[in-house]
């Protein structure tokens, strides 16, 4: 509650984190969001987010990983309230708590949500280098997006923007460029700058650093981390790069086929993965120096319009038993702060 937020705390390092879970800023429960399309009379239902519950604490970076098309983007779109048909929320709730101001995304007026989106929430979309207006210079995008929110005079505002760009290893000269005159990585950094220059309390970032070289990427991640620490905000960070998760995130959620299959503190998930999919994901991490032929996951990714029965991982799971084909494994606590949805993990045989 309020006093807890105000209480001074040691700069968030390893130990400062565990208690962050006490005051969730975001609570998602039982969320179900499907793409419902009908073309030429054929109804299709893509179950991209199926019964997902999790929370994100204040001053916490929550990582989200998982197979391509496992529904990560759909999940955070739903969380950010940025859905439009054919994506539909069937059940569940998404509740934010911004310093005592509770907002339920799917029970509030559109106006309230708009205000929240501008004031507290910042969403960096996947492939967002395309959101820049192609016929306007970068400078104008900054003025359009951020000027009102920063509330400073123009020259001062431009100084803030320039300093901010520099933290992202960008020269202020990019302000005078059109988006197509920038490289992919430069555009990506410009969108990150746009999303963070107002220092929002909640940042949702969908693969924001895919087009960056490792040095610049580290700089960008450090900047995100600094902004987060400065105002003790929360971040949901989606990426395929497990090394980024390892270095950035406090907690990690793993998705497979529209479901959250494992969640725990980053170190725990990396050191002792419980779900067979997570175990595979971590075992198959590419490292410099590997030369032997490495295999991707056997089998084909599940079709979310017609997902496998029971545990959705069973067709590809080395530990699949009979029950897995019939019944969906529930999410259970395997140790404090570590949840997993797998029958084998529950009996302790996944390792």
């Amino acid at each position: 509650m309020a006093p807890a937020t105000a209480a001074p705390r040691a700069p968030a390092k390893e130990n400062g984190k565990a208690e962050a879970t006490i005051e969730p800023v975001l609570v998602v429960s039982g969320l179900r969001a499907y793409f419902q399309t009908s073309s030429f009379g054929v109804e299709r239902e893509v179950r991209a987010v199926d019964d997902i519950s999790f929370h994100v604490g204040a001053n916490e970076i929550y990582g989200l990983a998982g197979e391509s098309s496992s529904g990560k983007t759909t999940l955070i779109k739903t969380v950010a309230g940025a859905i439009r048909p054919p994506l539909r929320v069937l059940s569940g709730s998404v509740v934010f708590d911004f310093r005592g101001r509770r907002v339920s995304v799917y029970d509030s007026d559109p106006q309230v949500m708009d205000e929240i989106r501008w004031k507290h929430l910042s969403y960096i979309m996947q492939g967002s280098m395309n959101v820049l207006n192609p016929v306007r210079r970068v400078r104008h995008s900054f003025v359009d997006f951020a000027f009102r929110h920063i509330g400073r005079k123009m020259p001062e505002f431009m100084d803030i923007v320039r300093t901010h760009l520099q933290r992202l290893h960008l020269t202020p000269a990019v302000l005078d460029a059109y988006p197509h005159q920038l490289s992919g990585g430069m555009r990506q950094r410009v969108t990150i700058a746009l999303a963070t220059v107002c220092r929002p309390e909640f940042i949702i970032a969908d693969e924001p650093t895919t087009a960056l070289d490792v040095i610049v990427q580290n700089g960008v991640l450090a900047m995100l981390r600094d902004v987060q620490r400065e105002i003790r905000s929360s971040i949901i960070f989606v990426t395929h790069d497990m090394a980024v998760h390892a270095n950035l995130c406090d907690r990690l959620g793993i998705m497979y086929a529209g479901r959250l299959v494992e969640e725990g503190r980053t170190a725990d998930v990396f050191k002792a993965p419980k779900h067979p999919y997570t175990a595979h994901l971590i075992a198959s991490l590419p490292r410099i120096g590997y030369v032997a032929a490495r295999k991707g996951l056997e089998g084909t990714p599940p079709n979310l319009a017609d997902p496998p029965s029971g545990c959705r991982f069973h067709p590809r799971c080395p530990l699949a038993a009979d029950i897995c084909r019939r019944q969906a494994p529930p999410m259970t606590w395997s140790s404090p702060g570590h949840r997993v949805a797998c029958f084998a993990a529950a009996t302790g045989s996944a390792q």
Partner: protein
Amino acid sequence: MTPPLLEVREVVKAYSMGSVLSRHRIRAVEGVSFTMKAERPEIFTIIGESGSGKTTLARMILNTVSPTAGTIRFRGTDLSKIWRGRDRLAFMRGVQPIFQNPFDAFNPLKQIDRYLFTTARRMAGLRTVKEIEDRADQALKKVGLSLVEIRGRFPHELSGGQLQRIAIARALISTPALIVADEPVSMIDASLRMSIVNLLRNLRDEMGVSIIYITHDLATAYYISDRIIIMRKGRVVEGGDARAVLDNPQHPYSIQLKQAVLSPDAAGSGGALLSAGLVESQAELGELT
């Protein structure tokens, strides 16, 4: 003697940027040279700083941007001498691209299968609907998809990974000799990334396709490349056998790049490495420029 597959000699690309009042020139690529032999297909990797001219170089090789200076020859033909439509088609049959951003690789207003069919018709010269669809399906199967899954769907209905695999499938349809892949796996998960990287490797080993692979991922670069160049500010700072370069980089920038690679073993370090890496890199950058 057969001419080399690709010969890039001293190419330079300068852009002018800025407003009318403060115009300045940017040299995106500054005298890059390399050759790829025709006899032995290889994976040639370009890594480097963001904004160092990798994409610009790729576009010049694809002949969609023309160099300010220098020459590029594909199988002995100077790209700047390709004028006629027929020659251009022949060139494109031999060289196909895969792009950086799968979300932008297909027109958002159009169904995606259309690109596969057009490529099969125009580039592979197929005529009947069945032939065309079979070829598209074959190519999709190579990347772990099938025509049934994507028929009639729009780009926004597919995830980034799916889109990128479709882009690769499309490039394969015309059985090219050279594929220029600009960050083809940057938006795909680690497991699929390996399968696509393995796929690129199979293309080289089994279909004899040479690949120019632009990436920021040193691990996959090490894993599949034969040769590598490292670029910074438009120039090649270091190049040679991929494993030799990555095992033992010589240039300060390359060394730094290798050190900056995040390790998954640091799980739970709370980002200590991030800030440290940054400080160090800034000091080093200052010294280099």
